[in-house]
């Protein structure tokens, strides 16, 4: 008090100002953190997942450029670049690593086994049997993500082949022999084919060169339908190599999801890359909130969609069952756009 008396009335105003500032500072709260996300992509075709993931995160309150930075490491269809890119991404110390497919996830798991950076994969098939995670409910390995269910659904794709193309009997199944989910999908197809009266012709395509070679010889094929299995080699080169050749050979291509149909495929059954990317935003949000990735159960995509490309069907003058068209969830009209 003696000091106050000596200072006069000034201390009262200083204290009052301090109270007001303290209240204002208390109301503003701590500074929000800025998250850094690194995305590993094997090729361009999968980056659509990143766009929907980005939108999902925006819908969950993140603001790219402000509190969220997304860095994309694209191998541009060169699988041999992926390990280096994963290392590069790890060196940037992101808060989370996003992998956009099976091969990216497999390589990231190998390269990041000594890292504590969580991994969220988007659209990986057969994750448990492949050994990517321990179980759906408790994935472990500091990983979680979206299992696209593409293996189980393979038999359903064949069923839709018989419904849409009732005259089809010979199905050429393209797969990558070095990719476990691709082989698993082939096995599922082989298991279902007898029940559907189909004959399968498996064809391993392990590189773009092999795919080009296959496409070049497609005119001479006697296949009624080509069925695609999960493989980054096939997916990334589909629109540029396989689909043009298949169209010329008038062999319909049945793909994994609507993205193939949009690029010229005749039909597909499965969840879209977009939906999986958007769905993964929920998991990314949870990991960023501090929950260990390995404790977050694996999610499956929303309801798969049966997509039909009428333009491709017309272009190839295919004979289809109109009733099957009525089962389509997403119909691409003859002008090439969804109705």
């Amino acid at each position: 008090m003696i000091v106050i008396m000596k200072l006069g009335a000034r201390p009262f105003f200083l204290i009052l100002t301090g109270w007001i500032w303290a209240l204002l500072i208390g109301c503003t709260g701590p500074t929000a953190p800025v998250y850094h996300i690194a995305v590993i992509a094997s090729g361009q075709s999968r980056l659509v997942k990143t766009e929907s993931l980005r939108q999902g995160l925006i819908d969950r309150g993140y603001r790219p450029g402000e509190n969220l930075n997304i860095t994309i490491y694209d191998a541009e269809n060169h699988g041999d670049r992926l390990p280096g890119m994963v290392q590069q991404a790890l060196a940037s110390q992101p808060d989370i690593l996003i992998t956009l497919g099976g091969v990216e996830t497999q390589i990231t798991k190998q390269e990041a086994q000594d890292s504590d950076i969580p991994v969220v994969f988007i659209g990986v098939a057969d994750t448990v049997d492949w050994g990517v995670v321990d179980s759906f409910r408790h994935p472990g390995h500091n990983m979680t993500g979206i299992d696209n269910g593409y293996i189980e659904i393979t038999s359903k794709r064949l069923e839709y082949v018989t419904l849409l193309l009732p005259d089809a009997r010979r199905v050429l199944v393209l797969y990558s022999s070095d990719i476990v989910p691709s082989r698993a999908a082939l096995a599922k197809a082989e298991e279902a084919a007898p029940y559907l009266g189909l004959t399968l012709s498996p064809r391993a395509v392990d590189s773009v060169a092999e795919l080009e070679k296959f496409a070049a010889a497609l005119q001479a094929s006697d296949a009624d339908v080509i069925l695609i299995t999960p493989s980054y080699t096939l997916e990334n080169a589909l629109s540029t190599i396989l689909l043009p050749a298949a169209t010329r050979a008038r062999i319909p291509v049945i793909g994994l999801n609507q993205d193939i149909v949009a690029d010229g495929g005749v039909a597909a059954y499965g969840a879209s890359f977009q939906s999986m990317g958007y769905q993964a935003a929920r998991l990314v949000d949870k990991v960023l909130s501090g929950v260990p990735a390995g404790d977050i159960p694996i999610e499956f995509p929303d309801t798969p969609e049966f997509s039909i490309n009428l333009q491709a069907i017309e272009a190839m003058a295919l004979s289809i069952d109109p009733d099957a068209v009525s089962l389509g969830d997403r119909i691409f009209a003859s002008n090439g756009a969804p109705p």
Partner: protein
Amino acid sequence: MKPYLPAWWQRLETRMIVQAALAALLPMLALAAFSLYTIYHQQIGDAQAVQQEMARRAALLIESRLDHVLFALQSAAAAPDWSQDRQNAHERNLRQLLHQLPLVEDISLVDVNGQEKVRISRMCLVKPEDLGNLRSEASFVKAQGGVAGWGEATLSDNGEPLITVVVPRLNPISRQRETYLAAIVGLRGLWDEVTAFRVGQGGSMYVIDEEGRLLAHPDYSLVLADTNLSDATLLKTLQADQSLPASYLDAWGARVMGSAVFIPSLRWWVVVEQPTAEALAPVRTLFYWLLLGALLAIAASAIPGWFIARSVTHPIAQLSADAIAVGQGDLARRSSLRRQDEIGQLAAVFNQMVADLQEYATELESKVTLRTAELQIALEQAKEADRLKSAFLATVSHELRTPLTSIKGFAETLLSDDVAWDEATQRDFLRTIVEEADKLRDLVNQLLDMAQLEAGTLRLQPHACMLSHIVAVTLERLQPLLGNHPVQIDLPPDLPPVYADPERVIDILRNLIENVVKYTPQDTLITLTARAQGNVVQVDLHDNGPGIPADMLSHLFERFARGDHPDIPGTGLGLTICRGLVEAHGGRIWAESQVGQGATIHFTLPV
């Protein structure tokens, strides 16, 4: 024991500021408490009402979506072609139905025994060996009773929540149950819609079954993880058919407010919860504003309170400082306060008191100085008296020893056997012995007289007597002592007789004349005169000696006062005895002298 009060609280200024702040704060606190209490309860009521309405809407949404599936199945079951045994047609119909019902994962045609005849799955090709029997399913048992019913919610291998519904198909003619349509409904698509209900920022809506299994939650991972809330306070309260408390801990330990609505057909609870802090945010905001208001009120009242307190305490502090200065001895200190109020009056009284105090102090100091001087004089006198007494003792001892020595010497001489003294010599010796004995007697008499005078026991025998006779007797007795000192007597003939003890008057005159003889040279004239003055006779004894110094003159009649004449024998009591004897007669004695012009001793005797 006095209670401890901190020093800052003991300051008047502090207490006045606090009292001013409290005076402004207390009414505001009372108003704030009332406002907070009212708004708190209103906010709880409003929040619970909103939550209840949202839960009710969500329950209606769930029921309507599932009813849609149920009605679609019932409508499909009513179609006539189910009775025909056409596998392909059944498959086509089921595919169409599955396509129309996006919530349905699998749909099958079931016979009366529960055996699936055809099943279409959304996820895979159903092979004949995959067909199962539903007779143990609760939904099938219900359907056997003729009522389309829902089974219990289960989780798929992937953790997705599912529920089975079975719808009986009655034969249009016999009205007997001839087949059933069964569907496995995936609830995830429904939950995305239900859990999209938002309650504030942190609120959530979720669904649990009677066993506490979490079927829907905005955090879908919790559903996939097969979370069970059977131990949660919420479910226990609901199962006890009690209303939820205003605030409670949810299954994840957060304090929330919530409401729940039961769906009887599914036996599910739709729960809406919101963090209590968020639900009561308006109350908290109001609290902060009131707190800010209180702080401002404190400041707004404390600042003028401080000025008021300062206007009171500052002059008091000044006055206190003045008082402390006065207390430390600065009696010249005065308060500089010039006010017309009570404090000004206090300052004036203070100044007056200090002025009085200063005056008293000055007076006291003067008295002390005076008393000190007097004491110093007394001390000096006492020292002088002591010195005189010592000198007196030495003198008396000497005066006593001298005649005794003579008497003893002459007596021993007369008694000596070895010398034969003639008679004349013996008589001289004896005369000398007598004279010395007389000296001893006179000295002893003087001492006795002095003792009697001081003790007040001297007895006079006064009577009217003629001074001339007394003077004559005195001179006769002193004749041997006078030597060459001429004496001139001048007594008027009409001098009245004095009323005195003649022997004592003789003693007075003898002492006075002996002093003159001792202290004046030979041939010094001694003049004795007397005159009547009123009722007394004044006797003046004058000599033409060297006179008495002024410093001795004032002590002349004091005991043992002998001046600076250590070589002249005497006790220093003669004049003191004279003064005692004169005063014993009621007279007065004094001396007048100027050095070099002789001295005069005056005394009076009553007539």
